[in-house]
């Protein structure tokens, strides 16, 4: 691109100050909005991909409730678990008081010291023996629970038993035991006496994000054997390819144990995840639609203006052609002109986009716009501008040199 092209282009633009200003303004507002929407889309999509720490492909969750009081809840739970484990393809089954992305949540404040006012808020998972194995949580230090550590929920409620141990996530370990090994350390989770940390798992997502992004990695698991009437969930781990097959059989298996119960839901974990993030997906889709439409409107605006300018400059273009300018020169002229307009708009748009993000951060708790999204908006608008101007510019190259000699 020759620098000398810039001079005539700039002087031509100076003669159309109002139209130039408008197109630059349009590009800048579009750029500002699109950089923000692209970021919001990415933000939502990254949430959807948020890792749970579970063996998701192998998991099935069943929600169950009884009718009236069930005095034999523990015995019934044991029968249920036996029936579930008997289904071909099932590897582990356990009760769980909640599941990641399941929304309903048990939380508590945890700390290595008692009655700590600065204790951190953590999700508190518990369930019957084999819960960790059923989850498929990845142990990175220490050990899993031993059968002897499990205490009955009813006994804990009546303060007749105390859960002796706890397994924590890496997030909790790094926050509360930074720099030392957490294994063997006391942690106040449940009751007046502490639990001993026996293991650390890589990750266990919380059932919801009510506690905020900063606390997202905080979860603990307690060895409290809880009947289905309190837990509400059976978590079943299958051989991965057989999850669907197992899912089809769980209702019948549970009904055979006791028919007077209501199965509120049975889902593969993929469905639990999909359900939880459906609004994020919907918003991402909507914002994608809006961004594309905005770019299209801006492109049409550029087409309209460029067409008008081509029409208006028919004579000059003819003269330039007659004086020896090639078709390529004419094409280049319009492309460079558009590049100048787009660049000016983009520079303004980046400032505006950043300002919009600051306002969104303040008003809607949207995170800070990473600098990389401004170039994304810029690249999109350069591209759209060049494509939009191509049509009118190509039409300009078709103007024959003879136009110059004709009177208008």
């Amino acid at each position, binding site marked *: 691109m020759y620098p000398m092209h810039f001079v005539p282009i700039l002087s031509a633009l100076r003669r159309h100050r109002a139209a130039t200003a408008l197109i630059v303004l349009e590009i800048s507002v579009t750029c500002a909005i699109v950089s923000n929407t692209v970021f919001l889309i990415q933000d939502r999509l990254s949430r959807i991909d948020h890792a749970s720490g579970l063996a998701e492909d192998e998991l099935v969750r069943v929600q169950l409730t009884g009718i009236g009081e069930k005095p034999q809840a523990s015995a019934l739970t044991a029968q249920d678990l036996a029936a579930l484990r008997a289904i071909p393809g099932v590897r582990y089954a356990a009760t769980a008081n909640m599941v990641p992305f399941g929304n309903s949540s048990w939380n508590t404040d945890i700390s290595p010291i008692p009655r700590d006012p600065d204790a951190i808020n953590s999700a508190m998972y518990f369930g019957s023996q084999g819960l960790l194995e059923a989850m498929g949580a990845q142990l990175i230090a220490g050990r899993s629970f031993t059968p002897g550590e499990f205490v009955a929920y009813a006994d804990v409620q009546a303060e007749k038993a105390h859960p002796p141990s706890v397994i924590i996530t890496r997030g909790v370990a790094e926050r509360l035991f930074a720099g030392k090994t957490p294994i063997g350390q006391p942690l106040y989770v449940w009751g007046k006496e502490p639990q001993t940390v026996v293991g650390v798992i890589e990750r266990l997502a919380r059932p919801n994000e009510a506690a905020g992004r900063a606390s997202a990695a905080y979860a603990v698991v307690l060895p409290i054997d809880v009947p289905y009437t309190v837990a509400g969930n059976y978590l079943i781990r299958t051989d991965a390819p057989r999850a669907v097959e197992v899912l089809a059989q769980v209702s019948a298996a549970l009904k055979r144990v006791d028919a007077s119960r209501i199965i509120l839901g049975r889902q593969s974990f993929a469905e639990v995840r999909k359900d939880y993030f459906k*609004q994020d997906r919907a918003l991402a889709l909507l914002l994608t639609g809006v961004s594309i439409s905005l770019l299209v409107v801006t492109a049409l*605006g550029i087409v309209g203006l460029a067409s008008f300018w081509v029409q208006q400059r028919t004579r000059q273009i003819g003269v330039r052609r007659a004086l020896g300018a090639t078709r390529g020169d004419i094409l280049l002229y319009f492309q460079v002109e558009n590049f100048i307009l787009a660049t000016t708009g983009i520079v303004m748009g980046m400032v505006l986009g950043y300002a919009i993000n600051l306002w969104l951060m303040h008003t809607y708790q949207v995170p800070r716009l990473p600098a990389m999204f401004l170039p994304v908006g810029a690249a999109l608008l350069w591209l759209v501008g060049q494509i939009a101007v191509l049509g009118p510019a190509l039409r300009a190259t078709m103007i024959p040199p003879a136009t110059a000699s004709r009177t208008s």
Partner: protein
Amino acid sequence: MFAYYLDLARRSLARDRALTALMIVAIAFGVGASMTTLTVLRTLSADPLPGKSHHVFYVQLDPRKAKGYTPGTEPPEQLTRADAEALLRAGHADRTTMMTGGNAAIEPARAGIEPFLADARWTTSEFFPMFGAPFAAGGSWAADDDARAARVAVISRALADKLFGAVDVVGKTIRVEGTPLRITGVLDDWRLSPHFYDLNTGVYGPGEQLFAPFSTSRELKLARGGTMDCWDEVPDPEAVGAPCTWIQFWVELGTTTTAADYQAFLTSYSQDQHGVGRFERPPNVRLRDIRDWLAFKEVVPSDVRLQTWISFGVLVVCLINTVGLLLTKFLHRAPEIGVRRALGASRRSIFAQLLIEAGAIGLAGGVVGLVLAWLGLWVVRNQPTDYADLAQLDLPMLLTTFVLAIFASLLAGLFPAWRGCQVSPALQLKVS
């Protein structure tokens, strides 16, 4: 004159079909997007109890321990069972009601229907008149039923249909968690949106199907739902003396007691409780009417407000686009304008003519925009949100669409029309 200008506008718009279409589409798109999100926003921030929302108040007290107290903090959002029952007994208002959300398994008597779980509300008899619940048959249970923990219930029309295939089922019984409850009334179709009286059990959801006295629900140990906060570990957090907040308490004021009176009553109640050592903190009460409560809880999803802002950003871009296109169009017609000026047309009349042309584009854009808004709302209704089915275009929004479209296009036309009428007659005649 207006008709003549309209005719000129029509001719001019017909001449440049592509450009005209472009402008109409741009306006339509901006208006369509704004009206879609605005309709959703309006639906979600609508007054759930028109005419009464300033007379119905939500009560908050602060029964927590002294530990961790800082003056000026917000009290808990719900009441303890002990306080709710005490306030209910005290009355001191036109109407009072306490409640919690819950659910219960229902065993249908009709063959062929499996037992199912229904969303329920455990409340007191004045709930129904206070919130204007319409009855299709029968009515509320009596105040006496609350005191006796009577085995009674009010059910929704949908539940009556499902269980009995009929609406007038007053006097029949419904099996709730194994206990038969006598039906005293069937509600007509009723959905408060937002579900303001308990925002812990869904904000825009369809509401409950089963209502029974709170006292009955406790005797039968029926499941409660929603949020519960406790500041001490207790074996039974639902017991009367438990240090747990989980009850919503509403009062209707205005006739026998004013809001200021009731607020003073709450303060003196807190002082009394402080006096006997139950409350450790100084009196800290809140009394918010429905509108204030909804504003305080920020019920309108922030995603919806974000979408509204984005769509207005889109409208701005579309308007700038239209300004640019109108400007090029009007300047392109400088020769024609020059001739009209030379023949005696005033600047004013040129300006009017060009603005009318812009307005005509706005009108057309409004029609197309309406179609787009209708399409947009159809998309919204197919979204997986609990307010999806509420998003409907009504008459006021329909009119707003046209007003917005015409206003937007006139706004967009102002500058181009002003530039257009600056054309000097002599210069244009000379060059052409």
